[in-house]
C-alpha cells in the first residue's frame, strides 16, 4: 500500500468520533491512574486492554496509546504535590517539582512538567516515525539465526536491568519462555504440558497472566501497611496560580535540556526492559552534569523538572521502535500493546509496517494526537489534580480488583480464567516479596513462541548450529547478550564490595 494511501486511511479511522472519544477517555484514565501513588501505567494499560476487544485494531491500539501517553504525564501530579512519585517513572520529578511546589509555586511545577511531557512525547514520536520504517526494512532481511540471537539479547538485557539479582532476572525470563511452551507446539500443533485441562489447551491465557502479574500482585502490595491506607493528605495546599503559556516559553527556552533529555528517553525506551523508570533518572543526571549550576538541582529549579518529565515521556515513542520494527516489545507496556494487536489478529513483526501500513501510520499519528490531548486535558483540569491524590487506597484497591476480574472475564467469559487470575496474582505477589522481578517473566512469555519458531526454523534450514556464532550479526547479538550480563554482574559485585566495609 502506498504511503499516502496508508496515511489517508489511518487519518480517516483515527479522526472518527468513536476513536477520538475513546482516546480522550484513555488519556483521562491514564493521567488519573498514574496520578494515584502505587498505581503504575502498566496496570492502567493492562486494565484498558479488555475494553479494546470490541474496537477496530487502530481504535483499540490508539486508545491504549492514549492511556500510555496520559500515564507518562500523570505521575508528575503526585510527584509535585505530595513528593511521592505516582509511577516509578516520576521519581526524578520529585527532586525539583516538589521543592518548587513547597516554595509556593505548585502551578508552575505542574505546568513545567506538563509542557515538558508534551514536548518529550512529540520528539519521541518524530524519532519513531524516522527510525522505525528503515529499521523494519533491515529487520525483514534478518534470518532466523539473527532473530533468535536478538531475542536472546533482549531477554538478557531485560533480566540484567530489572531487579536486584541477575540470576533471578534470568530465571524469570526463562520461566516466561517455558510458560509460553504450554499449549500447542508452534510448528507441529502437538499439545504440551496441558495436563488435559481445558483452560490450558490453547496455552496459558496471556491477558490473564498480565493482569495477575501486573495488577493483582501489585494491588496486594499496596495494602500491606495499614498506615498507608489513608493516603491522600496533600502536602501542598492553597490557591494555585497558572501561567501555562508563560511556562511553555520557559520550557522552550531550554532547547538543549529538552532535546537531550528526550533523546535519552527515546534511546532508553528502545532498549528492551529499560523504560521510563530508568530514563527519568538518567535524563536528570545528564541535565545536572551538563548544567553550569549543578548545585541548584534538587532545590526546585525548572531544568530538573524539564529533564525528568521530557525523559520519561519520550520513552513512549522509543519503546514502540523495536515493537513496530522488530516485533520485540521495548517494555512491559509495549508487550501489552503487542498483545492487544495479537488479540485483534494482527501479526506483529518486521512485516507489520508492510502488511498493515495504515495501522502503523495510524499509531504514529495517534502518538501526536494523544500528546496533544494530554496537554489540553492537563492544562484544563490542573486545578483539580490535587483531588485525585486524595482518594484513599481502601477504595481504589477493591475497585481496581473488580476491574481485573472484568479484564480476565472479558476475553472468553470463562470463570476458570478468573481462578487462574487469583492463582497468578498470589504467585506474583509471593514472587515479588522474594525479590523476583516480574517484567522479565512477561517479556519471556511474549517472546517465547518467536524464539522457539526461529530456533527451529534456523536448524531446519541448516542443521549446523555453529551458524549462530559464525553469522556476523547473530554473533554480535550473542556477544552483546553475554556482555550485558557480565557488565551487570560486575556492577553488582562492585556495589556489594563498596557496601560491605
Amino acid at each position: 500500500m502506498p504511503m499516502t494511501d496508508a496515511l489517508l486511511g489511518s487519518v480517516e479511522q483515527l479522526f472518527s468520533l468513536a476513536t477520538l472519544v475513546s482516546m480522550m477517555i484513555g488519556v483521562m484514565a491514564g493521567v488519573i491512574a498514574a496520578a494515584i501513588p502505587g498505581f503504575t501505567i502498566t496496570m492502567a494499560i493492562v486494565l484498558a486492554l479488555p475494553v479494546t476487544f470490541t474496537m477496530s485494531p487502530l481504535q483499540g491500539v490508539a486508545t491504549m496509546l492514549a492511556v500510555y501517553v496520559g500515564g507518562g504525564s500523570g505521575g508528575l501530579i503526585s510527584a509535585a504535590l505530595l513528593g511521592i512519585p505516582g509511577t516509578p517513572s516520576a521519581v526524578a520529578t520529585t527532586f525539583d517539582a516538589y521543592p518548587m511546589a513547597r516554595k509556593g509555586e505548585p502551578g508552575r511545577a505542574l505546568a513545567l512538567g506538563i509542557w515538558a511531557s508534551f514536548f518529550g512525547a512529540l520528539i519521541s514520536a518524530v524519532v519513531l516515525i524516522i527510525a522505525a520504517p528503515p529499521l523494519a526494512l533491515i529487520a525483514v532481511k534478518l534470518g532466523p539465526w539473527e532473530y533468535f540471537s536478538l531475542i536472546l539479547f533482549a531477554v538478557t538485557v531485560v533480566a540484567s536491568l530489572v531487579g536486584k539479582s541477575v540470576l533471578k532476572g534470568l530465571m524469570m525470563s526463562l520461566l516466561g519462555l517455558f510458560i509460553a511452551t504450554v499449549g500447542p507446539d508452534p510448528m507441529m500443533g502437538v499439545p504440551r504440558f496441558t495436563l488435559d485441562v481445558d483452560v490450558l489447551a490453547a496455552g496459558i491465557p496471556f491477558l490473564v497472566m498480565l493482569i495477575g502479574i501486573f495488577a493483582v500482585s501489585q494491588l496486594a502490595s499496596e495494602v500491606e501497611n495499614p498506615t498507608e491506607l489513608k493516603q491522600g493528605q496533600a502536602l501542598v495546599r492553597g490557591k494555585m496560580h497558572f501561567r501555562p503559556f508563560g511556562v511553555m516559553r520557559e520550557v522552550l527556552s531550554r532547547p538543549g535540556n529538552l532535546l537531550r533529555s528526550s533523546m535519552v528517553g527515546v534511546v532508553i525506551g528502545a532498549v528492551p526492559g529499560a523504560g521510563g523508570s530508568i530514563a527519568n533518572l538518567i535524563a536528570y543526571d545528564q541535565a545536572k552534569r551538563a548544567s553550569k549550576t549543578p548545585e541548584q538541582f534538587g532545590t526546585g529549579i525548572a531544568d530538573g523538572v524539564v529533564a525528568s518529565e521530557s525523559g520519561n515521556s519520550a520513552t513512549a515513542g522509543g519503546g514502540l521502535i523495536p515493537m513496530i520494527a522488530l516485533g520485540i516489545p521495548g517494555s512491559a507496556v509495549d508487550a501489552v500493546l503487542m498483545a492487544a494487536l495479537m488479540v485483534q489478529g494482527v501479526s506483529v513483526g518486521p512485516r507489520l509496517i508492510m502488511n498493515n501500513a495504515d495501522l502503523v501510520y495510524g499509531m504514529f499519528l495517534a502518538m501526536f494526537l494523544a500528546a496533544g490531548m494530554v496537554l489540553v486535558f492537563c492544562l484544563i483540569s490542573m486545578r483539580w489534580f490535587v483531588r485525585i491524590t486524595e482518594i484513599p487506597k481502601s477504595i481504589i484497591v477493591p475497585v481496581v480488583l473488580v476491574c481485573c476480574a472484568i479484564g480476565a472475564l472479558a476475553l472468553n467469559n470463562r470463570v476458570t480464567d478468573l481462578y487462574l487470575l487469583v492463582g497468578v496474582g498470589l504467585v506474583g505477589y509471593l514472587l515479588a516479596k522474594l525479590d523476583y522481578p516480574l517484567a522479565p517473566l512477561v517479556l519471556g512469555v511474549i517472546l517465547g513462541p518467536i524464539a522457539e519458531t526461529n530456533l527451529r526454523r534456523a536448524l531446519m534450514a541448516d542443521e549446523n548450529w555453529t551458524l549462530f556464532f559464525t553469522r556476523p550479526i547473530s554473533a554480535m547479538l550473542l556477544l552483546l547478550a553475554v556482555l550485558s550480563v557480565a557488565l551487570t554482574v560486575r556492577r553488582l559485585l562492585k556495589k556489594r564490595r563498596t557496601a560491605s566495609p
Partner: protein
Amino acid sequence: MSTVADRASRATREASSERGKAIANILFNAGLAALFIGLFVQAGDLPSSMWEPLGAGSFPRLILGALVLFNLAIMCQSMMALRHADPTASVGAGRWFMQRRLAFATLAAFCAYALLMPWLGFALSSLLFLLVVQIILGARSGRRLLVACVIAVVFGPGLDALFGHVFMIPLPSGRLW
C-alpha cells in the same frame, strides 16, 4: 513526615526478613527444580519430527535444563546469604504473615469472590466483595461506610450494566437465579 515514617517501617520490615527470604528462596527453588526435572523427563515423550532436527520437546527441554541450573545457582546464593544473615534480627514466618495480614486478607477475599461468582453472578458477588474489602481496609465508621456502600453499588451492579449494555460484553449472571 508520616510518609517518611511509613517508608522507614517498610525498609525495616524488608531488612528483618532477609533470613526468612533466604530460607524461602532455598525451599522455593528446590521445589521448582524438582518440578522442572519432572517436566524435563515428560518433555522427552513429546513427538519428534521427520522434517526438522528439533522435535516438540527439544525447546522446552533446553529451557527446563537451564532453569534447573538457575534454581541450583539461586539456592547456592541463598545459602550464602543465610550464613551471613543475623538470626537475631529476623522475624518468624508467622510474624511475616501478620505484618502482611491486610494483603493476604484482600487476596483471600478476592479468592472467595472468584469462587462465588459462578453462583451469585458478577453484580452481586462484586457488590459483596467491594463492601467486604473496604470494611477490611478500614471503612467501618458511619461516613466511610456509607461511601463504601455507594462505591459497592456503582462498581458492582453499575459496571455489570455498563459492560452488558454499553460494551456488549456479558459478565456471569449466576446459577442461583
